[in-house]
């Protein structure tokens, strides 16, 4: 069972951090939304794509020792929630860093990386991860 279309569909958002802005209330969202949860019906036709800068800081993080099946060969890995400069929190991995270097408040920037291989088909999926700004 391959779910390739599912990942193409999101690839623009995952490669370039494209979120949305509600032009009714000004809220910025990532991941993108079709409807603004604050304005609801009022936001119809007013949601506009917006590319985030890719910069932010570590809001919280953890070192994952007990991973999901597709990530079991990557453990231990650093999972974080990044507070982007534009506002939205994004969940992703921090790479190319020793866990001891990561702190809440550390500056990070986005990078495009391989995320995982899909099952036996071996399809490689890409997406965003974060690296420390040194």
């Amino acid at each position: 069972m391959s779910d390739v279309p599912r990942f193409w569909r999101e690839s623009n958002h995952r490669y370039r951090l494209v979120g949305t802005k509600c032009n009714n209330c000004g809220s910025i969202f990532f991941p993108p939304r079709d409807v603004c949860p604050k304005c609801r019906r009022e936001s119809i036709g007013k949601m506009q794509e917006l590319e985030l800068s890719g910069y932010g800081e570590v809001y919280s993080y953890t070192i994952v020792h007990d991973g999901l099946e597709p990530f079991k060969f990557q453990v231990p890995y650093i999972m974080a929630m990044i507070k982007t400069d534009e506002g939205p929190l994004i969940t992703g991995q921090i790479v190319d860093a020793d866990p001891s270097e990561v702190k809440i408040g550390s500056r990070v920037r986005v990078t495009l990386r391989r995320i995982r291989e899909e099952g036996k088909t071996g399809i490689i999926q890409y997406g965003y991860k974060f690296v420390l700004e040194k």
Partner: protein
Amino acid sequence: MRDVYIVGVGTTKFGELWDKSLRDLATEAGLKAITDAGIYSEDVNALYGANTSAGQFIDQEHIASLIADAAGLSELGIPSIRIEAGSASGGAALHEAYLAVASGKYDTVVVGGVEKMTDVPPEEANKIIGGSLDAEWETFFGVTEASLAAMIAKRLEYEGKIRREDYASIPVVSHRHGSMNETSHFRNAIKLEDVLKASYVAQPLTVFDSAPLSDGASAVVISANRTLINASENPVKILSSEISTDYLSLHDRSSIHSINAFKRSSKKALESAKITKEKVDILELHDSYSIVGLLQLMELYGEKEALDLVRNEELYWNKSRPTNTSGGLKAHGNPLGAVGIYQVVEAALQLRGKAGQRQVKGARYALLHNMGGIGATSVTTVLGVE
């Protein structure tokens, strides 16, 4: 709306039950519940089954028909419906069944919950549990449910709101209670140091901060039939059942440590039940992770009072705020679809005065919280006896 009572309860043992299939478990719990209610299958108008992920755990969907069949109900052809709301499936199924009986559509209904989790390896089970999170924007990137709980704990400690010991003590309480419950997955008491020194799942959380993978099933019979209610020695009334939802992804919420859906469902449930939280004698929380157990206490009692309760060890069965007297998800076990129903079994035993060693003296009101993921669905049920 008619008054609805719990007239029968039943549960299997929870744990790694390699010799039992999903259908064995569901049937055992259901038959125990109708026996406890003193009724026969013919008296049951409908079946509501809670199950989270049988399609992934055992390649079996269409659970509603399966459990009716396994329980020997096929000749009767009774209505049977499966409810799925992640790990809040049990609470959600009770909610639907309660509405069906209260509305007058059915008189007597069996509500069951079942999960068979140990037929797959643990990494696979973690992935399936992650199905309650956002597959596109959380789990795709390697997030586990434990890692989200860990990031909440890390942030709250960073902000100086809590200490590691505050949430590490939640499983200690659960294990103490679980040791007194014969259907528990784990029956050993543990110490704070055990929690702190165990191997990491996602730092700072260890295996002792996390509920286990369990097999198990629980069932209750609910009814508005006066004859049945009067025949029951100590009928437990469903005073309210309320559901609320929140953003599916943790990162989209107004705050990662607020369980807004519980704030809303518990407020409404207490209002509908016409009681205050101070009246609650029995509290069952969804302690899938120690930290989220603490967050629920903080949501219900406020941050300061919750921390005082934890630090003063007031959560034990013989203290002022008995919490998770069953052993909770941590010690009694966490078969996803069954936990919301087991909370009802525990509360009914307590309110009837039949909880044995862990009995809370004179318990009259119980508040139960069953949660999907880390609070994207929240079901609060309030039960009481006259």
